[in-house]
């Protein structure tokens, strides 16, 4: 049976496998063939693992399968896979083969998911467009001249383009939710601590979190169920208070949505605002109560984030020095200090260097309290704002991105314009909360993402409401240009 992977959900993959209409090998081959045929124009994948994936599929076909076993998945290249190249989108890690699997990769393997390959990303997850990859930009499947968002742009675009029914990304300041919004797919950032960070190459350790991309909210729940929970290799991970449920709710009766009006003044495009407002009307039609709230300190989240995250990055990236792994130049210099300098100058891209320098500066003696200390105090205030808000409402709704996908190259030389992409998502990371982006409509023919934010460990509440809204909105996640090509 030939399988059309465009628009194929993970749930439908399971149905096809369960019914024997397709084998694990045939399913994996269908996705890999589509990647081979079409990814040259999009650059979602840095590399695929055809031989290994088909071997794993064959093993499942021989042994028999159940559940999610045999469903393909794509992995952001920041997640370590034992013995397989993992670069975090950086020249400095080109050729690096980790000694172990990331915790989420272990869980994916245990669930029988079949990793198809590693997806493109902004270098070390620093960016909002996937243009900061050392291996070329990823293009948006809705329009190849546009960015897919970032930093997990390869993972988001891969799901939209029918290259994988599921993918994993990471979200430090919006790097799952923003590309999900720009590519018209679902992206979930779990509560900090809900998913293991073991084997995730660290950017901002108090902010990083792994989460899924999918075509539907139910698929995202299936993937979250696989990856969530305590991992003894990550002391910040905890057991979930309740199992992840696959949502089936069809209404929003009894749900109060809070809309932070003060945040919506932060550069939100009129078309994005119109789609967002229209989705809120549909939410009310499903029985939700929508009320205005305030998050008074959320407007300070972006500057606080761009002090805290670079500070953590400057410490985390100190390990890339040409000694233990990755790049070392042919002529490293006469002393070890020269070697450090040459390795890092050559191996890191401009945006990573910018953040290392910024982070080192704000942590330096004499400036620590003025910058880093102040930012941490702002972080505490933002967390309290959310606590106060969730005493009044069940979930908070905002657009996930203030804009739709923008042209490749439009913001690459303007760091502040690029950082502004995260204005609606970074408050969530600073507070350690879960958030989802689901497509809620179109503006200028491009997808708009609706973000639902909940209290810590309220993933089930978020997923139930998102599923009900998704049903009501009826968004078609298949990019029209790809549907025409595929027909």
């Amino acid at each position, binding site marked *: 049976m030939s399988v059309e992977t465009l628009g194929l959900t993970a749930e439908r993959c399971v149905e096809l496998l369960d019914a024997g209409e397709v084998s694990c090998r045939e399913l994996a081959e269908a996705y890999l063939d589509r990647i081979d045929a079409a990814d040259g124009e999009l650059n979602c994948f840095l590399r695929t693992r055809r031989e290994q994936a088909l071997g794993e599929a064959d093993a499942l076909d021989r042994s028999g399968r159940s559940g999610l076993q045999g469903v393909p998945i794509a992995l952001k290249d920041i997640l370590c896979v034992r013995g397989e190249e993992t670069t975090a989108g950086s020249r400095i890690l080109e050729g690096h083969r980790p000694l172990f699997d990331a915790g989420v990769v272990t869980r994916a393997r245990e669930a029988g998911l079949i990793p198809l390959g590693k997806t493109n990303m902004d270098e070390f997850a620093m960016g909002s467009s996937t243009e900061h990859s050392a291996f070329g930009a990823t293009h948006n499947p809705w329009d190849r001249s546009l960015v897919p968002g970032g930093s997990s742009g390869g993972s988001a675009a891969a799901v939209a383009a029918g290259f994988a029914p599921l993918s994993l990304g990471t979200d430090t300041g919006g790097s799952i939710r923003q590309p999900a919004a720009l590519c018209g797919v679902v992206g979930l950032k779990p509560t900090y601590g809900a998913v293991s960070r073991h084997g995730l190459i660290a950017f901002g350790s108090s902010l990083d979190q792994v989460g899924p991309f999918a075509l539907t909210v139910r698929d995202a729940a299936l993937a979250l169920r696989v990856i969530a929970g305590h991992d003894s290799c990550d002391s910040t991970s905890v057991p979930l208070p309740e199992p992840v449920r696959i949502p089936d709710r069809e209404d929003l009766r009894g749900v109060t949505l809070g809309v932070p009006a003060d945040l919506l003044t932060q550069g939100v495009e009129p078309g994005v605002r119109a789609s967002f407002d229209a989705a809120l009307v549909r939410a009310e039609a499903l029985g939700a109560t929508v009320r205005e709230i305030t998050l008074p300190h959320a407007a300070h989240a972006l500057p606080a984030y761009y002090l805290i995250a670079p500070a953590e990055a400057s410490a985390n990236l100190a390990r890339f020095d040409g*000694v233990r792994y990755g790049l*070392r130049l042919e002529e490293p210099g006469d*002393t*070890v*200090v020269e070697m450090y300098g040459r390795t890092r100058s050559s191996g890191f891209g401009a945006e990573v260097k910018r953040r290392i320098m910024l982070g080192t500066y704000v942590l330096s003696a004499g400036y620590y309290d003025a910058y880093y200390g102040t930012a941490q105090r702002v972080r505490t205030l933002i967390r309290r704002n959310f606590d106060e808000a969730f005493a009044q409402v069940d979930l908070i709704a905002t657009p996930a991105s203030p804009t739709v996908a923008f042209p490749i190259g439009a913001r690459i030389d303007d760091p502040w314009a690029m950082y502004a992409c995260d204005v609606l998502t970074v408050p969530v990371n600073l507070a350690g909360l879960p958030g989802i982006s689901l497509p809620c409509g179109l503006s200028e023919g491009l997808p708009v993402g609706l973000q639902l934010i909940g209290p810590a460990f309220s993933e089930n509440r978020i997923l139930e409401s998102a599923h009900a809204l998704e049903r009501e909105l009826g968004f078609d996640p298949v990019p029209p240009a790809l549907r025409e090509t595929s027909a």
Partner: protein
Amino acid sequence: VLDLENVTRPDRPRPSWPADDVLAGAPAAENGAFRVPPTS
């Protein structure tokens, strides 16, 4: 003095990564160690 209980688990010694595996990813290694230029 304080009515507190240590909640950390006891240390459990276990083998570390094999040196050869760790050195396999290094840009330069020699005699079971990372090779780097002199410090000065």
